[in-house]
């Protein structure tokens, strides 16, 4: 029998994710996929997996898992406080970005993410899952994807693929730096907003509220006033779009967002800043900086190169 984890605690929102589900926006299915792509990619690479393999993503408090049957080679990425409890000895404090070999009956306790939101658990050989419409990603809102479209719950068994890979001690040093400015490009309705609101957007501070999940990040701060019209005809959305509803509080669309929406778009977060954005927990302060498309493209190339370099160290 394949090895598996028995779930003793599911955690707040633990779901299987990969690089996302393409080509279904037109029927209302969001992209989903790992929120923090860089940490996702690093986790797979450290245990020798393909970048297309699924990881278990968790938010804030992660799951408590017990190893059943055979040993499992794992890694945790992100900024995560976790312990490994060996059956006959003391608990060991876990270190992120370092591989561990867990033995039968060991317990992996993913206690919390430190001043961040998402962490990733990758297992060598990958979890035993089936793709749904081309992806392993779970979209809980539509009830689709791995684990029958649900987050993981106590008593469930998370089966692993059989892996012939030998355990390799791998480690990189990586620090998840906090982002100071979220860089944005003007949205398609930028000019609907009053001059003072446009200036507030770039000069004042916004706070991430508790109403933030995989679908969207609601912000509070100066109210953004729309001079033109507060509803537009519903149209497509992408992740990173900053919509401003009638109440003037911006919402940033995240990976599980509704595929269409009818609120004006004041801006769009650049692709290179998305991984850092989603890691901001409630009460974090955000400042926006407006840049041009050509600059955003350059920054993305650089960000990508940085990720490649990290992966090449492994």
């Amino acid at each position, binding site marked *: 029998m394949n090895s598996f984890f028995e779930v003793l605690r599911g955690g707040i929102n633990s779901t299987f994710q990969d690089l996302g589900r*393409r*080509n*279904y*926006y*037109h*029927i*209302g*299915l969001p*992209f989903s996929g790992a929120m923090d792509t860089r940490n996702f990619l690093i986790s797979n690479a450290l245990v020798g997996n393909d970048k297309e393999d699924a990881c278990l993503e968790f938010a804030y408090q992660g799951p408590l898992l017990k190893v059943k049957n055979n040993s499992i080679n794992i890694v945790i990425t992100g900024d995560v406080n976790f312990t490994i409890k060996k059956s006959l000895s003391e608990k060991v404090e876990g270190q992120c970005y370092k591989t561990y070999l867990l033995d039968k009956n060991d317990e992996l306790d993913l206690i919390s993410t430190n001043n961040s939101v998402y962490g990733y658990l990758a297992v060598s050989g990958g979890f035993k899952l089936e793709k*749904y*419409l081309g992806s392993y990603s779970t979209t809980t*809102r*539509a*009830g*689709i994807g791995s684990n029958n*479209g649900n987050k993981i719950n106590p008593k469930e068994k998370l089966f692993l693929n059989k892996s012939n890979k030998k355990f390799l001690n791998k480690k990189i040093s990586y620090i998840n730096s906090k982002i100071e400015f979220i860089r944005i*490009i003007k*949205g*398609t309705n930028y000019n609907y907003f009053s001059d003072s609101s446009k200036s507030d957007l770039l000069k004042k501070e916004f706070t991430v509220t508790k109403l933030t999940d995989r679908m969207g990040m609601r912000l509070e701060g100066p109210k953004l006033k729309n001079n033109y019209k507060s509803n537009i*005809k*519903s*149209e*497509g*959305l*992408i992740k*990173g*779009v900053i919509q401003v509803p009638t109440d003037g509080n911006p919402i940033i669309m995240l990976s599980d967002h*509704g*595929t*269409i*929406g009818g609120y004006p*778009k004041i801006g*769009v*977060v*650049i*692709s290179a800043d998305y991984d850092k954005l989603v890691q901001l927990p409630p009460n974090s302060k955000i400042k926006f900086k407006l840049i041009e*498309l050509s600059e*955003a*493209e350059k920054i*993305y190339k650089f960000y*990508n190169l940085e990720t490649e370099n990290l992966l090449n160290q492994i």
Partner: protein
Amino acid sequence: MIKNISNLGDAALYCDFGDEVNKDVNSNVIKYFKLIREKNIKGITNITPSYNKLIVSFDLNLTSFLELKEKIINIKLTNILDNKVKTIKIPVCCDDEFALDIERLTKKLNLSKKEILDKYFDKEYFCYMTGFIAGMPFMGDIDEKIQLNRLETPRLKVPKGSVGITEQFSNIYTFESPGGWNIIGNTPIKVFDKLNLEKPTLINPGDKVLFYEISKKEFLNLNNE
């Protein structure tokens, strides 16, 4: 025709077909949607048609705004032979327990329930787009006399299967979801079926849809099937 293409962020194209919303404009959006899909252009990750816009998102590792814009501009709108368009028939039960907003509608429109439903049913509608939540179709145009704005305060939970109207459009809630449309009934038909991998959505952009009224008994029978 596409009037303008701009960038939506650094990884999507925003194709603008103008401000008007009607079947002709939307048909063009859908034609472009189908043509771009057929071409399988490198880097495109999603194409989202709506009333009068088309958003093409892409993988910034594989292509860029300017490169894709050039490709989309050069697409010639050919006449697509689409003989697949058939009329999809949707049964709806409008008993009071399902018609959550019928009272609001009768008051605001100054019409009886029967008058409202007579105007709504047995008329062919056109699906402008599908989305927001999985498989939710946006259809139109409903009779001018039964057009009304959405609720001032949206419901936190609209039951699955609810059929709603707002402005010139009608939709179906494929999942229980928050929402602000005026609910006139409920359909027992599965409009989104995740187990149908070939075609999880019953109603797609460009399809024709016809609603017909059923009794509570018929509703329960269909629901059990």
